[in-house]
């Protein structure tokens, strides 16, 4: 994983460290030797499809599941042998899990009361927490009487009022409609900056992950595919799966020989080692060729199959000489038909590892 040098540099800021954690349900491996760390004040998203093991990883951190092997450490303390109620970690559950028999206020006060915080402190901190999520007006309501978005806020206040070192969020926005969801994404992000608590956020929605995260840990079949900032993972995907899952891309399969790549009749310089190679080329990095081409531009001729309008951009499906089909995103344009010249910069064809080989 990380080299010793980078480990030493980051050591001061690491809050949570997951070391070689593996977990199976019966014979089915769910997580395979995962190593991952979360920095102080970081917003880390665990992104993956359903069945990738992302929720299990979160439940291991919270203490609802026990790892078969490996260790979890938080701030110099080994976390994995502790029961959930001894961990300074709080969770926002997917379905909120608010106590139906308690008012909003009592839900938020729950953690402080069971930890025997003085009553006057409880009142003050609960008021602050409710104000923070703008739910003061609903303090006396039962959870069944408020909307999904409001329940979401209460669940957040109930967790944050305990001032955890780490907040775990299990797809907390998945039950909200699209508009509310986008609004909550931004609110959640700014709230996280405000309180300065590390967030571990689980989602299957790559767009959500991109908008909110400092770093994304992309999980696939129980293994980490790539851990990087949204920009890095988008612009330098490590694997073909990462390239396809984060944003849209064209995967070009071919061979690299002595610094030259050959894919379906396209030829361009590359840094990939010699042998079979896959390149990720984002649709927006292909453009209609003008007469004055740059030196490193790779040019090809293709016929346009379909054109769809997406507001600021048009999405084209094109077919090149050797039957290679590509998706191209160009600034909105009048109708395009027939043959056209396209080009892309060789630097934008990113060599990626083949995700299929490993499994």
């Amino acid at each position, binding site marked *: 994983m990380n080299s010793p040098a980078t480990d030493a540099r980051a050591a001061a800021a690491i809050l949570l460290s997951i070391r070689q954690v593996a977990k199976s349900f019966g014979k089915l491996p769910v997580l395979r030797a995962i190593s991952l760390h979360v920095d102080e004040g970081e917003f880390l998203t665990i992104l993956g499809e359903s069945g990738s093991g992302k929720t299990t990883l979160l439940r291991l951190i919270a203490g609802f599941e026990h790892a078969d092997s490996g260790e979890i450490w938080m701030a110099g303390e080994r976390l994995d042998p502790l029961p959930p*109620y001894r961990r300074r970690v*709080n969770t926002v559950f997917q*379905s909120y*899990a608010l106590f*139906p*028999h308690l008012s909003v206020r009592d839900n938020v006060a729950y953690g402080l009361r*069971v*930890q025997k915080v003085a009553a006057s402190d409880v009142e003050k901190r609960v008021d602050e927490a409710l104000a923070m999520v703008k739910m003061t007006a609903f303090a006396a309501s039962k959870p069944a009487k408020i909307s999904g978005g409001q329940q979401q806020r209460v669940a957040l206040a109930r967790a944050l009022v*305990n001032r955890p070192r780490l907040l775990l969020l299990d797809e907390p926005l998945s039950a909200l409609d699209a508009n509310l969801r986008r609004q909550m994404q931004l609110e959640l992000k700014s709230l996280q900056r405000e309180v300065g608590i590390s967030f571990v956020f689980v989602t299957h929605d790559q767009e959500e992950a991109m908008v909110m995260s400092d770093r994304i840990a992309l999980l696939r079949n129980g293994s980490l595919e790539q851990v990087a900032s949204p920009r890095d993972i988008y612009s330098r995907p490590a694997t073909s799966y990462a390239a396809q899952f984060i944003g849209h891309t064209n995967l070009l399969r071919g061979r690299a020989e002595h610094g030259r790549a050959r894919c379906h009749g396209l030829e361009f310089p590359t840094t990939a080692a010699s042998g079979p190679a896959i390149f990720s080329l984002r649709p927006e990095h292909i453009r209609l060729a003008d007469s004055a081409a740059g030196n490193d531009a790779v040019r090809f001729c293709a016929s346009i199959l379909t054109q769809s309008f997406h507001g600021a951009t048009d999405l084209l499906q094109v077919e090149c000489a050797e039957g290679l089909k590509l998706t191209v995103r160009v600034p909105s344009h009048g109708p395009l038909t027939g043959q056209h010249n396209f080009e892309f910069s060789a630097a934008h064809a990113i060599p990626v590892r083949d995700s299929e080989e490993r499994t």
Partner: protein
Amino acid sequence: MFSRAYKAAITLPPLLWVAVFLLVPYALLLCYSFWTVSPAQTIIHHWNLGNYRELLRVHVYFETLLRSMWIAARVMLFALLLGYPLAYYLSFHAGARKDLLYQLVIIPLWVSYLVRAYAWKTILGSDGVLNTLLQYVHLTRHPVEFLLYSPFAVVLTLTHIYTPFAFLPIYASLEHIPRNLVEASHDLGASPLQTFWRVILPLSIPGVLAGATFAFVLSLGDFLAPLLLGGPSGIMISNIVVSLFGAAYNWPLGAAISLCMLLLVVGLLFLSERLEKKWSYS
């Protein structure tokens, strides 16, 4: 959507059933309670309140009712004390053995009530299993007599018989508690004990109320256990009703007691339902 004939065809049989087997008998009961028996042992269809006056005048009826309620209250308490921990264990901690244990709790319900009542007679009698054992280990010299033919024997037997009835609704209510609420409680720092008092118990109250009602109402109206095991001191109100409708041949007075019991039970059911509503959140 459906034709009138079709609607009539599916609603009429149950309505008829209710009419023939519930409304008519209750109406008859009501009528009888205002009639009297002549010295010649015939029913006189002459409307009066004599039977109800008799119930107020002769104290034994009220005393027996009180004793029945006291027995039923103890049965209810013991059934809850046994049924709740059992239901809790099954619902939260039994794991893979859950289905098997559930069946084991239910199986006694398939065994005839009489067999189970007689079984206690065999256990508690002066030559019974318990006394033989006590004498064998020299704890007692003579058979202990209070075991059988006493309110104690009735409470014990009824508790044995009605605990599954208390268990079932409690188990159902515990099974309905979303497990993520328990996880949320632990996550917020509550120990398992705190979680039980603050989350699990409050959310299982409707089941407890239903179970308590079952145990209390079923025991209150029981007549076989006191008949077989109660002796003179363990007589319950239903034994009086049985004898009034039988050997004593005073149907009108029996009907009056039955109606009072009916009103009491309906009142209890109503109260229990109100309370259950107040405590349910789904």
